[in-house]
């Protein structure tokens, strides 16, 4: 009876995860689902690690899941995949951006960025690895990396029957729309390749 699907978006403050959750929830609401979404504001915005959860289905109770509760994770940065992977069900899907943002502790030499993050994720989960930075840059700006990942997520969740082009048109500013429509399409296709 409980058909609720749970998504966790993980990244670094400023990467555009909030915008993705806005587009995603708008599309899901328009498609008639009950939707809940949870994000945490405040100190996390200052370059910290951020996560947002989206849940949808016929009737959603809790806005969040705990460990082992998410069907899919989208990691906007690869070390964040490692940090949040315990929220993913063991049979869940991880969409991972092959992209690195150094935390302050690494940048100032107090810690070392770990090797083998993606390899480790592959060992445990079904993974879709996307080089969203290269795809986004080739489309005009690295800033549309988030929508590339969104495209890959839509494919992995089999939500491609929703008219996302229309949702993106309603949600995004006109001057960045064209690039992001291409980014979305590229994300869908990149996900198919794997």
């Amino acid at each position, binding site marked *: 009876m409980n058909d609720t699907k749970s998504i966790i978006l993980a990244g670094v403050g400023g990467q555009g995860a909030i915008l993705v959750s806005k587009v995603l929830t708008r599309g899901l609401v328009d498609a008639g689902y009950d939707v*809940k*979404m949870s994000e945490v504001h405040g100190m996390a915005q200052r370059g910290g690690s951020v996560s947002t959860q989206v849940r949808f289905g016929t009737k959603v109770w809790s806005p969040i899941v705990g460990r082992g509760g998410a069907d899919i994770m989208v990691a906007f940065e690869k070390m964040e995949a490692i940090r949040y992977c315990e929220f993913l069900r063991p049979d869940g899907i991880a969409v991972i951006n092959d992209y690195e943002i150094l935390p302050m502790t690494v940048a100032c030499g107090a810690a070392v960025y770990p090797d083998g993050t993606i390899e480790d994720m592959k060992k445990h989960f079904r993974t879709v690895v996307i080089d969203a930075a290269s795809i986004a840059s080739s489309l005009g700006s690295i800033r549309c990396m988030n929508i590339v990942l969104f495209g890959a997520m839509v494919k992995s969740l089999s939500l491609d029957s929703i008219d996302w082009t229309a949702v993106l048109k309603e949600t995004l500013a006109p001057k960045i729309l064209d690039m992001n429509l291409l980014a979305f399409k590229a994300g869908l296709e990149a996900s198919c390749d794997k």
Partner: protein
Amino acid sequence: MKNLLSGNEAAARGAYEAGVKFCSAYPGTPSTEIFENLVQYKDSLYCEWAPNEKVAVESAYGASIAGASSLAAMKHVGMNVAADPMFTAAYMGTGGAMVIVTADDPSMHSSQNEQDNRNYARAAKIPMVEPSDSQECKDFMIEAFRISARFGVPVIFRTTTRVCHSKSLVQFGERMESSVAEYHRNASKFVCTPANAHRNHPILEKKLSEIEQYSNASELNREEIYSTKVGIVTSSIAYEYSREVFGEDASYLKIGLSFPLPMEKIRSFASKVDRVIVIEELEPFIEDQMKAAGIKCEGKNMIGNLYELNPELVSERVLGRKASFVTSDVTAVGRPPALCPGCPHRGFFYVLSKKSDYVICGDIGCYTLGSAPPLGAMDSCVCMGGGLSVAHGMAKVFEMTAQTGKKVFGVVGDSTFFHSGMTGAVEILYNKSSVIPCILDNRITGMTGHQDNPGTGFDLEGNPSPMIDIAKVLQAYGYENVIEVDPQDLKAMSKAVDDALSSKVPAAIICKRPCLLIKRIKHEKGMCIVNAGKCRTCRSCLKVGCPAIAIVDGKAKIDSSLCTGCTVCAQVCPFGAIEKEASR
């Protein structure tokens, strides 16, 4: 058509629909967006940022005495500041209906403690509603105004981070206009002399017993009967978690009006099930009162009183079901928040980080991040406005015990200064300590997401306002040597500190530079680049703690997508290897 709204957006909508006339708040995560959203209804109501939570509650209460319905909002620790007028307002009762929002922060996502403010309702004898999703945030806000109007008492509207910042679907209604009766003096009600208070206390007790009857009958407290084996008494977000975990394998008593508790309804519910479990976040607020009323139940023995719950934790702690999940074999490095590239606070903390005999008492705001490595320039941070007074107490002890080498700095921001730092500045002068008050004036209330304050020249509605000059305030107190400095100029910043320390008259420092994220100010653009030929990898530039600088392939490198060209790193480079490009 339903709208996907956060709890805060829905609470704002509810206040609007309830016909509220006067609204006053001080920003604080997770409550801030209520007023940021309320301002869209400014044609129908008045709303403002007050200098602090106490002022907000006092102003809202004044509006209530004058006959208007009013709203005050704050985060949980803000209610500590506002408690004084709140407790007495309960005794005296309201004129127009009045609702006070407290947004609690279990797990301390953005707070210094996780106090459970439901205890305030009981201590102050103020009825309280607790919504658990966004639709309820809207509906319960309207209900809170109704309860206040009916019983003539203020009502607390209590949420938590997870309710405030989760989005769910909300059905809108129309605004119900409220009327404002003509004002006539009623001193025996609204003047809290001991004689009047003596008379008012039993009146409040009578109201509370009437509200308890109302609570027993109210649909805000609702039974959902599925099973006779297990009955769950729950409120707020814990209700959603319980429904998620137990589905229709348990019955529920969902508490929405949680003070005064509907004890007869709870007793009747308990009699219908074999086992009663109370599932609530933080303190055993409901459970303790049930036990005191002789109703057998369990809860905290399994659930505990620390941090946020979620469905996994409820399932594990109550049902003993361990979640199945995988942890990575690779360890993720922490990613704590840091001062932004170009943050004006960086220069101040960099200069103070250089001396080991400096004692730095910080405060709540972005500048608390001056405590983080590599800057690490902070000894204490207690509460809003505490930076100056805590410094005073420390300095006095150093004087009394002849620890004369220690130089004490009290640090507050601009918004914090107006909030409650001003009294600390008076304390330092009046009681003659050697503290140097430092006001880090970045022209905005930063950490909560950029709200105006009495120093910025604008009000919540975006209208121009008198810009209160911090230097003049300090001078009027008696700080004869007020040094205004641009903290990004490290030489000037160092000189300001030296001048203040050697000053023969009371001195204070105001670091003045706007936050780079303020949209209405045109900021100078630019970026710094490293001349790799000159870089000797001495790592001096890393000590400023800027997220834009790292050592890459053995040389300092500046991330062009992050750098703002503030030049603090260039000023500390001993080899002149960092240069500023004029613009890009």
